[in-house]
């Protein structure tokens, strides 16, 4: 305990000068990123950390894993989290702790300059403690980054599985990105929920945005189609690119009796036909033109609201 008390003494007696040296060290070091962190903030962080460290060393020696170091560890974790979000690299984050070594070692050398044995021991204890704290920052940093990645994955999952209504009773499901089982589950649930909500009897699954289709992906698509059918809705598969058509045949995937179309437009046309609807040109060449034609069209539109115009 004697040596750790030495560290505690050094920290207590020379706290101010250590702090100043440490801040100078950090400012001089490019890793501190003065553009992200002002000197004032840095000073605040450093002072806070040093105070906690001094208290922890006095109470719990140099056991960085001990209960006395709980506040220090928590402060370091918070700092790492914040820096991870601000875009610091792991090295730059860990340098916060490691740059404390030089000022402290300097003070220890001044104190034990005449006794190499005691100096070596004190340095060793101090190094272990600070290394340990440095590793804690790295670990917390990594955890923060992982959280970011998980959140982005979830957001992507949400973003990439919209179900849109093409027409009354016709849903479209534009799939974008690779279809794995987790996504298939989300896609399937979304689609089925929307079928119930809208009472749709047709769903167009568009796989234009799916980069590759292998047997697993095909299996997932077939499952989705089967589930929709159980709910009383038929599915049309569209957006099949030439390479994917080749892959499907080479793999021997049997798409069964699912209607497949090359483009979403084709699938939509089939869907309209199934519903007994059609698309008609408003300014048909046979029309007499002028006002009469427009009136005619106006009436048509009232009778059949599904008229779409192509100009």
């Amino acid at each position, binding site marked *: 305990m004697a040596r750790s008390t030495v560290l505690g003494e050094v920290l207590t007696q020379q706290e101010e000068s250590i702090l100043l040296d440490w801040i100078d060290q950090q400012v001089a070091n490019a890793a501190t990123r003065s553009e992200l962190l002002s000197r004032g903030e840095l000073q605040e962080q450093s002072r806070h950390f040093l105070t906690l460290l001094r208290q922890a060393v006095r109470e719990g020696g140099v056991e960085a894993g001990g209960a006395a170091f709980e506040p220090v560890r928590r402060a370091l974790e918070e700092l790492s989290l914040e820096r991870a979000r601000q875009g610091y690299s792991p090295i730059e984050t860990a340098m916060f702790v490691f740059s404390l070594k030089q000022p402290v070692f300097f003070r220890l050398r001044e104190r034990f300059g005449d006794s190499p044995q005691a100096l070596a021991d004190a340095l060793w204890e101090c190094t272990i403690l600070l290394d340990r704290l440095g590793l804690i920052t790295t670990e917390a940093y990594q955890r923060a980054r992982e959280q970011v990645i998980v959140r982005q994955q979830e957001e992507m999952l949400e973003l990439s599985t919209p179900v849109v209504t093409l027409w009354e009773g016709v849903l479209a499901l534009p799939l974008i990105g690779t279809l794995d089982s987790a996504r298939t589950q989300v896609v399937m*649930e979304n689609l089925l929920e929307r079928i119930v909500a809208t009472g749709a009897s047709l769903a167009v699954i568009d796989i234009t945005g799916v980069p590759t289709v292998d047997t697993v992906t095909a299996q997932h698509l077939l499952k989705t189609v089967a*589930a*929709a059918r*159980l*709910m*009383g809705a038929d599915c049309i598969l569209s957006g099949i690119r030439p390479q994917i058509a080749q892959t499907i045949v080479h793999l021997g995937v049997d798409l069964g009796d699912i209607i497949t179309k090359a483009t979403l437009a084709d699938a939509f046309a089939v869907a309209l036909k199934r519903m007994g609807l059609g698309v008609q040109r408003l300014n048909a060449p046979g029309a007499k033109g002028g006002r009469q034609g427009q009136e005619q069209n106006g009436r048509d539109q009232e009778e059949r609201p599904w008229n779409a115009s192509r100009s």
Partner: protein
Amino acid sequence: MERIPILKMGRYLLVTIQVDMHDRLAMTLQDDLTERIVKERAKAVLIDISALEIVDSFIGRMLANIAAMARVLDAQTVVVGMRPAVAITLVELGLSLKGVRTALNVEKGIALLRNSLQDGRDAGA
């Protein structure tokens, strides 16, 4: 003994399953339904399972069996009102109920039956 009621509407039979199916109930339903199809000379059977929250492989197979039996007795079967969770479960179990017709709700189911019976009559005429 607990039974599932079978309602007659014209030439349709309507079965609404509102309790959780256990195996014996399912077997009883199968017996009752085949007998009623013959007795009422029904042309179609509509099974509403919108109240069913749990469907296991046995019930899934029973639905398929009922449809097959009804077809033998010259009646069509439509299963209506399946919940999303149930549909996903059945698909995961590998039961896609091929050969059973489905519709979103009773109204659509009746429309489907009416259309196909109409077609059948037209073709037969």
